[in-house]
């Protein structure tokens, strides 16, 4: 199956955002195409998370427009096409009394709607999602008892269970060791290449973004770079993003 990469899934048009007097984002224009694996990178406090929250309708831009699947976000109603793994998913309350399967069931709730309980087909989809991330065997474990890497897989399964077309991940590997991170990014690559899911990965880790993603957007209040990660290094993008003193240390795998 080939993917039509020219189709726009998300259009960000001249979006600005400010908290009171303080400008967080200025005049951002960005397109996400079907099948893209977009990395959004930038310094802490540069507005990455704010941009994602605006793209998800959690924050309203001060000016500018967002279109999701061709529809103005104000009127957008197909939220089941969108999966979201927030920063908080990584540092959630580990005492929360909930099993792996109960968490992944939540991925189906948006599809089902009010007053409808989950059906057999929902449970089949939950099972398949857990199998895709190799977590079905641990379905009855309390999520707080799992390792950080296993918890991440559960949140991926929860997003997959909603059968979305695009998944947003906000700093998904904070507090996870390098080996687990590599496994995790391997899983994301598989989802992008085999299931043709559009992924939007937010990270402060420029190394991860340049190695893993197919598109890249650098945000520090304004959109500094928006293209191919391979050209980013060639074009001295880092200097523009972080200032002149920074050097990129490449890890050759």
């Amino acid at each position, binding site marked *: 199956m080939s993917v039509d990469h020219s189709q726009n899934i998300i259009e960000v048009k001249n979006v600005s955002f400010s908290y009171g007097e303080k400008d967080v984002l200025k005049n951002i224009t960005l397109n996400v195409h079907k099948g893209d694996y977009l990395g959004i990178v930038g310094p802490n406090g540069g507005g990455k998370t704010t941009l994602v929250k605006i793209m998800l309708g959690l924050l309203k831009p001060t000016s500018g427009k967002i279109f999701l699947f061709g529809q103005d976000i104000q009127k957008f109603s197909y939220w089941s096409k969108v999966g*979201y793994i927030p920063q908080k998913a990584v540092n959630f309350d580990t005492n929360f009394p*909930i099993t792996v399967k*109960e968490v992944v069931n939540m991925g189906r709730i948006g599809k089902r709607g009010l007053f409808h309980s989950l059906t057999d087909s929902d449970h089949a989809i939950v099972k398949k999602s857990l199998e895709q991330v190799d977590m079905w065997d641990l379905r009855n474990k309390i999520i707080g008892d799992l390792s950080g890497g296993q918890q991440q897989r559960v949140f991926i399964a929860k997003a997959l269970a909603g059968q979305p077309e695009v998944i947003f991940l906000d700093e998904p590997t904070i507090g996870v060791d390098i080996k687990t991170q590599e496994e995790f990014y391997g899983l994301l690559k598989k989802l992008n290449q085999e299931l043709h899911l559009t992924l939007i990965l937010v990270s402060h880790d420029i190394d991860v973004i340049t190695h893993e993603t197919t598109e890249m957007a650098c945000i520090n209040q304004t959109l500094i770079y928006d293209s191919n990660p391979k050209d980013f290094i060639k074009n001295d993008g880092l200097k523009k993003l972080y200032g002149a003193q920074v050097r990129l240390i490449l890890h050759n795998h």
Partner: protein
Amino acid sequence: MLEIFQYGFIVRGLEAGFIIAVIAPLIGIFLVLRRYSLIADTLAHVSLAGIAFGLILKLNPMITALVSTVISSISIEKLRSSKKVYGESALAIFLSGSLALAIVLISIAHGFRVDLFNYLFGSIVTVKQSDVYMIGVLGAIVIALLIAFYKELVYVTFDEESAKVSGIPTKFINTLLIILTALTVSLAIPVVGVLLISALIVIPVVAALQLKKSFKQTIIYSEIISIFSVISGIFVSFYLNLSTGGTIVLITLVIFFLTFLMKQKTD
């Protein structure tokens, strides 16, 4: 037949107590996990002002308590979600404000001190047959709404942002939860009293949480703890001539300490 069942008030107390014991942890689990435990206490103080109004105007104090807590619960949620006031500050304002109002009302109308004592600390003697019917009907409504919106409540409690992105009307769910809390608080007044309601809503859930089970199992364990505490509390307080509300809450606390110790051992 046991001597205890010959007294009408005991039977009414057990009926009302059982219903309250069933509802309290169902609400409590969502409040505790959302760090909202104090809202129950705030609404209990609001209900005291409502009761004072009821006693002055010679209306059923449970109904005036119900109206005042529901109105306040909606106002607290509005104030909190406006983000102009911190969540805890909103609670502190309502807690102290309504207590002040209650005290002023009580000082205006002298002469209902005995009644008030019963409402403060709970006394099943005050449970009338009409109260049992009201607790039954409203209790059934609370349970029906909790079942109808169960999966949305769980999702919003676990991760409000993701719930919002997946299209769940989070504002509505938040308002629903706080109104149901207001209803539960008002209904529980005759059994455990204003000052101890939040204990019945919070402690059985915190005890069950120590067991580290799934969401559904945590609800079942907190139900068992709550029902056992209320029923045994009514019996013990009757035979030993103790305060009903106080006895019930002390029993929940003993169970909490037991589960807490069990957890320490397994950790």
